């Protein structure tokens, strides 16, 4: 959870308007996860199937190659691991991680 200081009525834009486009990126949903996708870089062919099916915009791609997984937003749904054609992603119980 990120926390934005709660402001008074004179300090916020009128009408509930949000002028900071895309600021939900600062809101973490990674804590929802009970299983974590872990990618095997050796196996991965960068086909980007995981990227196109990810509901949480959490497959980080740069220049057509996967750079990692955005664990601050990944909710651990497991679609990437299910759909990976070369089984390069495994879902591992969060309990096995200490970070």
């Amino acid at each position, binding site marked *: 959870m990120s926390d934005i200081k*709660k*402001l*008074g*009525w004179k300090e*916020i*834009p*009128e*009408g*509930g*308007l*949000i*002028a900071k*486009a895309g600021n939900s990126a600062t809101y973490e949903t990674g804590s929802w996860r009970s299983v974590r996708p872990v990618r095997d870089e050796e196996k991965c062919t960068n086909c980007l199937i995981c990227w196109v099916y990810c509901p949480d915009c959490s497959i980080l791609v740069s220049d057509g190659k996967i750079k990692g997984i955005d664990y601050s937003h990944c909710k651990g749904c497991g679609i990437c691991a299910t759909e990976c054609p070369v089984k390069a992603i495994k879902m591992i119980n969060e309990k096995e991680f200490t970070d």
Partner: protein
Amino acid sequence: MNNKMTAITGNEAVAYAIKQINPDVMAAYPITPQTDIVEKYSEYVADGLVNTEFITVESEHSAMSACVGAAAAGGRVMTATSANGLALMFEILYVASSNRLPIIMPMVNRALSGPINIHCDHGDSMAARDSSWIQIYSENVQEAYDNTIQAVRIAEHMEVRLPIMVMFDGFITSHGIECVELLEDNKVAKFVGKYPPRYPLLDIDHPVTYGPLDLYDYYFEHKRQQIEAMRKAKKVVLEIGKEFKKAFGREYKLFEEYRLSDAERAIVVLSSTAGTAKEVVDELRTKGEKVGLLKLRLFRPFPYKEIAQTLSHLKAIAILDRSASFGAFGGPLFTEIRSALLEADKIPHNVNYIYGLGGRDINQTDIASIYADLEKIVKTSRVEERVKYFGVRE
């Protein structure tokens, strides 16, 4: 004077005002007795006389919804409606005001269904009195025209940014032909000025989100902002009224006092009935009766302080409501004024008349009888019946 005097109906005059205002978008749906506005405006559009993108929506709900989408996009937006049309818009009236979109809406007063009725009463706009729309009532065709033009400046004022509805009486004013002064196009254009955008959706380099889910953390703060904007609107209404007078000669304030300063008895009323009542006041005055009238123009925000001050010297007042507030202690105007009077040094005797529902006529004899009732109240210092239903058969 270059402006022309024209014999014209209220609807035609208001359609003409909209043409002169030349909004970027208009979205409207025809409904009796507002229909002529939509028809007339369609002609202006078809003849290429306006820049307006006219959205011929399939309902009033979509009219107001499209107005919200268009106003948020960043431009001047108008619509017009009546009665059931306003009721169908209801949910979106609140969305429009909460998003602080200065939509301008002429509103032809008509009784709400059911049973279905097409004639005048104020039940429609009164039902919307808490929707955070500024509400201005017009007595006659000239006022409907002038108020529509002023409404643009009031709503779009940076300290206000609230939608506004301009009321005038169905059939009586909407279809009544009166001789009015129509202003010159360029002068109206100059008076309304350019639309001052704020957070337009179409400014794609500065993207914004309108209409988020706003829970207990911030909803109240946003409502507080609206309350403040409404408060400020009163000052703006007066400012724009002054400016209008300077430009065009006719004066508009929060309300009109008619032979009131030395009066002992007065009627408080909205819209066209005020015209009838003024005749009665003049007649009674010739007989030496100290009677007067307060015609309220601005109902939201309600100018309670000013009204309390203005009415406190009277001995008795009759507040005429052309709508019923079912289960309440009197009509909406009555409850507002009675509450406002608690701010006054002295509270006059007061009585409420619910009248004219569904277009039931009220004439000069009727109004004279109300002044006579007030005389009795002054003499006896007693109000026998606080809320009366005037003109209904028992």
